[in-house]
Each structure stands twice: as C-alpha cells, then as structure tokens.
C-alpha cells in the first residue's frame, strides 16, 4: 500500500533495526556462552554444551563440569546479564525522563544511595537483606532526586551536577557504614564503589529476578509516555500525559530496579550512561525500541566486562566496575565536553 511505504521511508532507523535485532540476539547468546566456557578452571566448550544439554534431559555431564558451569558460572553470567540489562534500561529511561543524555542512575546518586540501604541490609540479613535494603534505599534516593529535579528543570547539566554531588556525599556515608560494621557480614568498600558479581548465587538470582521483572515491566510500559515527554513537560501534558504521575512512577521503578542491582552487585558504573548512547544511533530515539536495545546492550556489556574482570589478572579478580569505568569514563568526558561546546 502506498501509505505503508511512505511511513517506512519516514523512519530513518527502520532498516537498521531490521538487522539489529537478530545481531543483538547473536551477541547476547554469544557473550553468555563464551563467558560460560572461560574461567579459572579449564572447561572445554563441549563440556559446557553437555552440562547444558544434561539439564534439559539429553545425555550426562561430569560432576566437576556441572559444579563449575551450573553451580558457579551460569548464575554469575545470568546475574551479570540481568544487572547490565537493568542498568542499561534505567539509564535510557532516566535520560528520557530528564531529557538529558548525561543521566545515569549511579552518577545521579541513586546507586550510592541504594548502597547505604544495601550495606545495612547485609548486616541484618545477608544477600536477601542487601537486596531488600537496596530496594528501599533506591526508591528513597529517587524521591530525593525528584525534589532536586523539580527545582532545576531549566538547566539539565545542573541536574547532573546535583546528582554527582549527591552521589559523592552518599558514597561517603556508605564508607562509614562499611568501616563501622563487622567485615565478615558486609561486603568490602570496593564492592560498593566499583561493583562485583562474585557473590552471584542461584538464591540471589532467584530473589532479585522477581522484583526486577516487575520493575522492568513497569519501566518498559512507560515507553510511549517517555516519547511524549521528550517534547517537553508542558507539551506532554497538552497531549494528555499526567506528567507528575509518570515521573513519580518511573522514578520509583528506577529506584527499585537500581536498588536491587546494587544489593546484588554493588555499584557498576557507566553502564546506564554508555549503553543508551551507543544504541540511539542504531535503533533511533523512540523508547519502544531504545529501551529494549539498551537492555540487550547493557546485558552484553556487563557480561563481557565481568569476563575481563575475572580473567585479566587471573587468579586475582578485579571489580567489574573497574572495567566498565575504564571504558565508560572517557565516553562520559567526551559527552560532557561535546555538551559544553554545544551550549557555548
């Protein structure tokens, strides 16, 4: 139909998305599979395959391969993907909500805020306590952020600066909690500042995925409203968006999702900033596509970063956030400088 071709021609990202989704699937599965095969213990690819096949009822795998692949690597890799996907999604959502591509949950202070709750939660109840504490503190920090955003809608760079200040302050509080507490129950300070997936277990994965599924669902459902909000808050209201409600719901969702990831893996920086930035030129700015793409991109990014983190200096494991920061830091600087030159 004539109308159809006109509408397609009017979307410059239409053809790019056509090859992006299959490629994204290949990358996701590829990164996960490679991560399952590489590690401190040598396991051949055929052993990985036989472990996975044995789980669905085909053939048998050696006990040792099963213990390493299924007991350690699968939960860790899945958790990495889940954490990365959540952070990528939250980054894209926050950038849409605040109409600012410099927004990132950890840079804005949500991650550091959640860390305080997660550290206290860890004292009270181990990994589940950490997840619950992160969840609550993440939402609380979101509300603090909302108060700050309200007062500075005019200048988006200011929002980021406020967030950075908030984050630095809250990170310091995490330090007080960590150093004041029993070292055997609270993860060390580098966990909270740089993140790590070394605590991954099936228990952690199971607990977190329930909460994350709800939060992720809610955030994905806001895609259309985020599109409308990019016209500006007043325009969005003219078109029937309850902007106050959307802002509140989205911030709760972001706070909850980030809080849970912090309880699981500490603060893995720059994922939320970097991934949407890379995805936008490929799939376009419509949130319906951008949010999904950012989830996949974030998942792949963290899985591969964690692979580097545990193999680069093997047998020593470095924090995964160190890897993401090495890549993300320069990009953030470049973005900030580019923004300066645009504003000037």
């Amino acid at each position, binding site marked *: 139909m004539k*109308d159809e071709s006109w509408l397609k021609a009017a979307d410059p990202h239409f053809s790019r998305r056509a090859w992006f989704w299959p490629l994204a699937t290949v990358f996701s599965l590829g990164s996960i599979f490679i991560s399952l095969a590489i590690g401190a213990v040598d396991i051949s690819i055929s052993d990985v395959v036989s472990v996975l096949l044995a789980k669905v009822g085909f053939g048998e795998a050696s006990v040792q391969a099963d213990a390493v692949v299924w007991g350690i690597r699968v939960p860790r890799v899945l958790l990495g993907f889940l954490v990365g996907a959540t952070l990528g999604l939250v980054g894209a959502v926050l950038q849409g909500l605040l109409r600012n591509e410099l927004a990132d949950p950890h840079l804005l202070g949500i991650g550091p805020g959640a860390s305080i709750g997660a550290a206290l939660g860890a004292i009270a109840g181990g990994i589940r306590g950490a997840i619950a504490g992160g969840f609550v503190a993440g939402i609380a920090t979101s509300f603090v952020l909302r108060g700050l955003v309200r007062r500075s809608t005019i200048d988006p760079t200011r929002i980021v600066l406020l967030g950075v200040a908030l984050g630095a302050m809250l990170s310091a509080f995490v330090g007080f909690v960590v150093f004041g507490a029993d070292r055997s129950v609270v993860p060390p300070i580098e966990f909270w500042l740089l993140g790590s997936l070394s605590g991954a277990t099936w228990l952690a994965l199971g607990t977190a995925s329930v909460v994350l599924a709800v939060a992720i669902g809610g955030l994905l459902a806001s895609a259309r409203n985020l599109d409308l909000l990019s016209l*500006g808050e007043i325009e969005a209201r003219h078109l*029937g968006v309850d902007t106050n409600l959307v802002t509140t719901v989205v911030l709760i969702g972001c706070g909850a999702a980030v809080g849970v990831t912090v309880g699981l893996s500490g603060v893995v920086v720059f994922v939320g900033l970097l991934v949407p930035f890379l995805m936008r030129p490929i799939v376009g700015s419509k949130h319906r596509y951008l949010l999904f793409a950012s989830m996949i991109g974030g998942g792949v990014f963290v899985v591969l970063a964690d692979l580097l983190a545990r193999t680069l200096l093997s047998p020593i494991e470095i924090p995964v956030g160190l890897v993401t920061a090495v890549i993300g830091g320069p990009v953030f600087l470049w973005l900030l400088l580019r923004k300066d030159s645009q504003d000037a």
Partner: protein
Amino acid sequence: MPDPILIAEGVTYRVGDITLVEHVDLVARPGEVIAILGPNGAGKTTLLRLLAGDLLPDAGSITVNKVDVCSAVPRELAKVRSMMRQGGIRDIPFTALAVVKMGRHPHRNDENASRDSERAAIRSAMGRTDTLHLAGRTFATLSGGEQTRVVMARVFAQAAPLVLLDEPTTALDVAHQERVLREMRQLAAEGACVIAVLHDLNAAAFYADRIVLMNESIVEDEGSPGEVLRAGLLSDVYGQTMTVAEHPTRGCPLVLITDTVR
C-alpha cells in the same frame, strides 16, 4: 447559536504582587476564530496558558466543553483542547512524522479508531500544513518556520474542538502565514473554535470573527474586527499612531502605521 465550547469567568492570575491577567470573561463558540491582540506584556500568552490549563488562576473559573480546566485530568483535557506554545518544542530527536503522530495520543484508545483512520488523520494534518515532504526529517534539523508548521500539524492531528495557538505565524514567511491562517479558518468551518494570539493586526482583521484586545492585564475591548480596530483605540493601546482604512480587496479594516508624533 451553538452552545459555548469555552466559558471563562472572572479569570485572574497573579505572580507575587503583579497581576498578569485581571478579571477576564470570555465565551467562545464552535465555528469561531478569536484573535487575542495587544502590546507586549499585555497578558495575552498568560491568558492563553490559563485557558489551556497550564496555569491555575488565582480567581475565576474556566470550563472547556463543560470540563473544569483546573481540576480535569490531562487525558480528558487533551481530548477537548489542543495548544501550540510559542517556542515550546526544542531540539528533539524525533522525525517530523513522529512528532505529528504524537498528536494522536489522546485518541489512542478511541473505540472507532483504526490504523487507516489514524494514518488518514496524520496525513491530512501534514497536508494542511505543507509538511508531508518533511515527514522523514529529524525535527531538530528543520528550520524555525518548518518546525512551527510541524508543531501546527501535531495540533491539527489532535483534532480537539478548542484549538489554542500562541503566535502561530511568527516564524513563517508570508505565504505560509496565509496558509496557516486559512487553515485556521477552515478548522473553524469544520466546527472547531480557534483562539489565537496574534501580533499582525491585519491578519486578525481579515481572519478573525472576534478580537479580544488586551492591555495591561485587562480586556480593553472586545468585538468584531470592525468594532475593535479603531484608530484612536489602537494608537492609545500600542502607543503608536495608526490609521484605519478599508482593505482594497478583502472588505475588512486595514490598519496602517503612521508617523504623527503624539
């Protein structure tokens, strides 16, 4: 006469000690084009924003299609009024088509909406504003005038019975100004009510049924172009001498600037 679509009574808006809009009454009916005129700072835009529900009045009431603007939920309001702000939209990353499509948001769950009817609405809105050829362009890369027309298309696509326009012709060349003004008339002919803040007195003289002339936060005069566009009144309100003749072809008043020092 059809029932009013908009009833504003005693609308007053203050910021601190300053009154921006004072006790304005306005009744508007379907099929009407109303132009709000007045010098800078007269309160025109503030009045329009009050009518749109962007600002809450300190006193008075505003209803659109019997919906109380101050307490309505955004969804409800978006079905009965559309609004084009002056310089509202900035550099957004979407295509012109995507922006116009957003105008259909309030009708997303309408019972009789179909894919084809939605597309027809979008196409017609873009045709009327001469923006079909811009459909695939990124909004941020368009010129000021093109952006204005795309936003106008979005407003048309919204298909609300009350259309509020803040200086819709400001960034446009003469031909596109006339086109937008004609389309404004056409919307009224189709049963909408259009209220536009204009600076061009002669555009108001020809295209408006009624003129609301504001000065220093109050409505100075209201009536047909022939009634309101009087040389003495305009010269007083704007502080610039003017004379009013008859337009040679349009059969409406023609306002001319003169140089008499007052």
